[in-house]
């Protein structure tokens, strides 16, 4: 009886939360663990510590190419989607007009559509238009899937933004551009940087769209995908994967700190989605 009562009062929730977080993190933690293990197959018990797999990474030309490609694609996608995100987020938070919700819904749609279908639709159109597949087409695809995330980050930074500050600046004789540069921009800068980091991370990790839309050039996830066929290459892939995990983790932590700072400036709290 007391057990039922305890269940109903929710006393089990903290331990459940702990187990749940463990379930979320445990699978991911195996990658770093086995990347420093001497054995070529990932299994217990661990056979010994080595950094050998990491030392091999910079000696692989194909990997360095893929890393360079990922960097180019990531930076271009981040900049483009953040610019488009700024325009849209500013329009959504600042103006009221008919069709606003529909347009917003359309821009956010890639978030909830199966990625394969988004990817093959774009592939069809690009082939029809006679565009040859390259890193450029990958960037086009990544921008489409990054915009919704950029919008979420930016609207949370723009919302609650005090419009009277801009009006005051205009009244005091500042031009529209001057107002933007000296009043608006400093207020929203953390949100913009946060959006850049989020989009870069998404692009860096994105596989499906890159897989369909790239020509012969590989990004890092595509390189990893190719290596997965070879069992002997697994430790190297685990090492590379670990580096990517760490990079994503760091970028997202910085992005979240900046986003919170931006939200605090405009007195608006909440999570990335809230």
């Amino acid at each position, binding site marked *: 009886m007391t057990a039922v009562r305890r269940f109903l009062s929710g006393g089990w929730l903290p331990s459940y939360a702990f187990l749940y977080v463990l379930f979320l993190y445990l699978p991911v933690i195996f990658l770093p663990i086995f990347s420093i293990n001497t054995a070529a197959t990932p*299994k217990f018990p661990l056979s010994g510590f080595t950094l050998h797999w990491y030392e091999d990474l910079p000696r692989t030309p194909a990997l360095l190419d893929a890393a360079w490609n990922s960097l180019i694609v990531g930076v271009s996608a981040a900049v483009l989607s953040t610019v488009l995100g700024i325009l849209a987020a500013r329009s959504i938070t600042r103006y009221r007009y008919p069709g606003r919700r529909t347009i917003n819904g359309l821009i956010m749609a890639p978030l*909830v559509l199966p990625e394969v279908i988004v990817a093959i639709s774009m592939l069809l159109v690009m082939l029809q238009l006679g565009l040859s597949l390259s890193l450029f087409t990958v960037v086009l695809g990544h921008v489409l899937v990054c915009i919704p995330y950029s919008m979420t980050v930016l609207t949370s930074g723009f919302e609650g933004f005090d419009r009277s500050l801009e009006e005051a600046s205009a009244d005091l004789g500042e031009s529209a551009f001057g107002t933007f540069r000296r009043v608006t921009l400093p207020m929203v800068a953390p949100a913009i940087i946060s959006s850049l980091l989020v989009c870069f991370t998404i692009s860096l*990790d994105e596989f499906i769209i890159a897989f369909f839309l790239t020509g012969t050039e590989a990004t890092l996830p595509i390189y990893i995908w190719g290596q997965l066929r070879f069992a002997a290459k697994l430790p190297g892939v685990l090492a590379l994967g670990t580096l990517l995990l760490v990079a994503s983790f760091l970028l997202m932590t910085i992005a979240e700190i900046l986003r919170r700072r931006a939200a605090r400036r405009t007195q608006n709290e909440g999570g990335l989605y809230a």
Partner: protein
Amino acid sequence: MTAAAEGSPPWRMTRARRNALLQSEPVQGLALISPTFLYALILLVLPILVVIAHSFWTQNYLTIDRTFTLENYRIALTEPIYRDLLWRSLYISLTVSLFTVILAYPIAYFISFHGGRHKSLWLFLITIPFWTSYLLRVMSWKVILGYNGVLNSGLMGLGIIDEPSTALLYNSSAVIITLTHAWAAFAILPIFVSLEKVDRTLVEAATDLGDGPLRSFLRVTLPLSAPGVISAALIVMIPTVGDYVTPKLVGGKDGVMIANAIQAQFGKASNWPLGAALSVTTMLIVTLMAGATVLIIRALQRLAR
């Protein structure tokens, strides 16, 4: 902007009126959003229309025959392979969204009602694994469930089993486990948001009026958080139906899903119209399933009150 108004156009509009129009709120708002909107139109809406068009055409080697036909849909719906793959994909995505929602609800509840000062820290802690590469997360499940994997070697080390089990990897259960893990955070966030909106005084009122914790939860909190449950279910169900990586890496023969067949039509098999018809069919059926889910949850919500 004013310079454009000066070159007296044929449909002469006074400068003042034109300026007023240009500075009106709807025009400025629309002008500002138009680049992003156009981008989505050209790279999302147009491509989807092209896919729909292709699904009614046929292909002879490299040329597309543009006469209208429903043949692709007949193949997609009646050929046993595609029908089975479609059913399996729907079954997997439905199971995964059920699991993720049921597992996520207590966490969202815990953070919202007992999170205290640390709410955003909890949310951050839960979302961070999901910003890591999806491909890598699927790969780690392969490492865990594999023949020589963590689970098998761990269980053998503990003496629970004598030889590695092959039942763990390369089947639809492996796909379901991996996807449930991969989409967990996406279910927590919408439920959390709707729980945050639940008026706490209503829960207190129910308790004051004699409802126990279970009854007040079932009659107040749960129905009020139904919108979050609905969006959580949809945000997991729709994308997972078209998942490609997970079935390819951990699904084996028994875990192949419809996205793998679609990819094959655009790759090796090179039958774009059939691939397009499979995509459209998948989207239509998952939309129906999503609609049914919304109706069922709404009906349950009404029953609970």
